[in-house]
């Protein structure tokens, strides 16, 4: 068992501080320009949906991909964000931003409640319990008519209220470009904060719990506490995404928050690449745009979509991120072979 020393070059690369900001700059420029590249009202609307779905996929990835907790209740937190904001604005005449803040806090607190189950239940059992939460949330939206209007839905919901900063022109969100910049900008901030968090020791802790809880506890990690942390933050982010949904669509009905939405979010995370930062972003964008691009198939659209999903999971279990890594490895091998 001779101990082979670490090569100085390898040591240097392991101690190299990662540089993120060039990629962040590209992302910001993309968010700024996209509404002008895809300039029809239809595609501008889809951009807003993409930004919301990116937040939802990021939120689920934190819980499922990094902490390893099977959570099928994410649609419930999305619903809490949407309904709490809307009811406070419509029925109690709150300012949108104050309502959104309360909605995010509510979603986070309910997430902590669900975490209490995650402390006792593992794997499939937690999946069933969280699915139960999503079903209950949906039933409440349907039946608590005095507050949610039930199946009739809430109509005429306005976009987020304008931001007034003294000395600057008023910022309004009534046009789709401004709304995309707002939601896309917030999705960007969420990405950066979550990426920073997961690159920090918190990321190491959550992944340790995903891999082996007993082992994590033997290193001083309190699994219950950190699962609660992941559920709390993940649910709050899903709630944040929900805040912008009603103002964008203009109406709010329970069917937008059925349990199938939870599965769509899971598909985004898995197709993109579970447990990676960029994977769920790609997954969310692809799975939001794909059904739109398949409109030519008419009735066959959803079948083609389902087939595409199945093929991805079958042939790229690590998602599109893994497929990309494999392609890059093959490409670099081919090019190094050619240079010889």
């Amino acid at each position, binding site marked *: *068992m*001779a*101990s*082979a*020393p*670490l*090569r100085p070059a*390898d*040591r240097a690369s*392991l*101690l190299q*501080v990662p540089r993120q900001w060039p990629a962040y700059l590209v992302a910001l420029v993309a968010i700024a320009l996209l509404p002008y590249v895809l300039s029809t009202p239809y595609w501008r609307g889809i951009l807003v949906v993409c930004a919301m779905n990116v937040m939802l996929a990021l939120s689920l990835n934190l819980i499922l991909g990094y902490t390893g907790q099977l959570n099928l209740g994410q649609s419930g937190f999305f619903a809490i964000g949407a309904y709490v904001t809307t009811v406070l604005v419509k029925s109690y005449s709150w300012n949108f931003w104050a309502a959104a803040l309360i909605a995010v806090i509510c979603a986070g607190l309910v997430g902590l409640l669900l975490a209490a189950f995650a402390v006792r239940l593992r794997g499939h059992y937690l999946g069933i319990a969280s699915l139960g939460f999503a079903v209950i949330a949906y039933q409440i939206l349907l039946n608590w008519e005095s507050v949610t209007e039930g199946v009739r839905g809430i109509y005429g919901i306005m976009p987020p209220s304008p931001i007034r900063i003294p000395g600057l022109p008023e910022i309004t969100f009534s046009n789709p470009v401004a709304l995309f910049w707002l939601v896309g900008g917030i999705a960007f901030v969420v990405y950066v*904060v979550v990426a*920073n*968090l997961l*690159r*920090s*020791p*918190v990321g*190491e*802790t959550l*992944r*340790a719990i995903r*891999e*082996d809880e*007993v*082992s*994590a*506890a*033997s*290193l*001083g*990690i*309190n*699994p219950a506490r950190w699962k609660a942390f992941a559920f709390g933050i993940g649910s709050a982010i899903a709630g944040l995404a929900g805040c912008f949904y009603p103002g964008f669509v203009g109406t709010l009905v329970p069917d937008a928050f059925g349990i199938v939405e939870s599965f769509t979010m899971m598909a985004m995370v898995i197709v993109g690449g579970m447990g990676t930062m960029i994977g769920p972003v790609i997954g969310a964008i692809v799975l939001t745009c794909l059904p739109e691009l398949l409109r030519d198939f008419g009735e066959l659209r959803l079948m083609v979509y389902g087939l595409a999903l199945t093929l991805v999971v079958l042939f790229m279990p690590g998602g599109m991120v893994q497929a990309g890594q494999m392609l890059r490895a093959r490409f670099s091998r081919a090019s190094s072979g050619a240079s010889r």
Partner: protein
Amino acid sequence: MSLLVAKNLRKSFGGVKAVQDISLEVEPDSIFALIGPNGAGKSTTLNLLSGTYQPNSGSLSFNGQIITGLPAHQRVRMGIARTFQKIRLFKQLSLLDNVLAGFHIHHQIPFWQYLVPGSAFWHDWKRCREEGLELLEFVGLADLASQRAGSLAYGQQRLLEIARALATRPRLFMLDEPAAGLNGSEVQFLLQRLKDIRARGITVVVVEHNMDLVMNVADHVFVMDHGEYLFRGSPREVQDDPKVIAAYLGGELS
């Protein structure tokens, strides 16, 4: 003063009495070996000491403080680390990431820098990585730092678990059959490392089947059989004791 004191520990699973009335004392800066035939209750005892299991009755104190009932993760903060009989690595993570997770209780980063990294964050980041690589060097795995832990050979996995547990900077380090499945040269390497760990001022408790290892490194040996105390003494005394020989050879002599 003894570092770890256990008094009258009992643990049963259903009707099976795995550990019955075990009392032991571990002296600081020593290597304490817990031995016995299969099913003697050694691993259960170690699980009781580490907090992985809680005893049905009995008491535990560490460094003068009562730790009975304290969960495993809190005992780690007091300076108790362990490895597992059945290897429990974070298989999908790299070797370095496995060790980095071991620094969980030692980070010094202001709360807000977890969201927006600043100088304290990067200082901690670099310090942990350097220290993690040193620990990998200590167990001879530094050149594999960025490999996946699951891809390691069996003996290397055992060594990685040792490096990961050492990252918690323990005062008491408990190893559950560290030599199981190792070949001769690997056992020699492990033996040397256990001595090095003791030389660093870390007290070692080792549950072991490999008599060669026990006789070579242990300062005190504690023998269990059928969940009960059988004998304690120096390695030489244990080797010569008829009760111990009987327990290992099948009980004809007693």
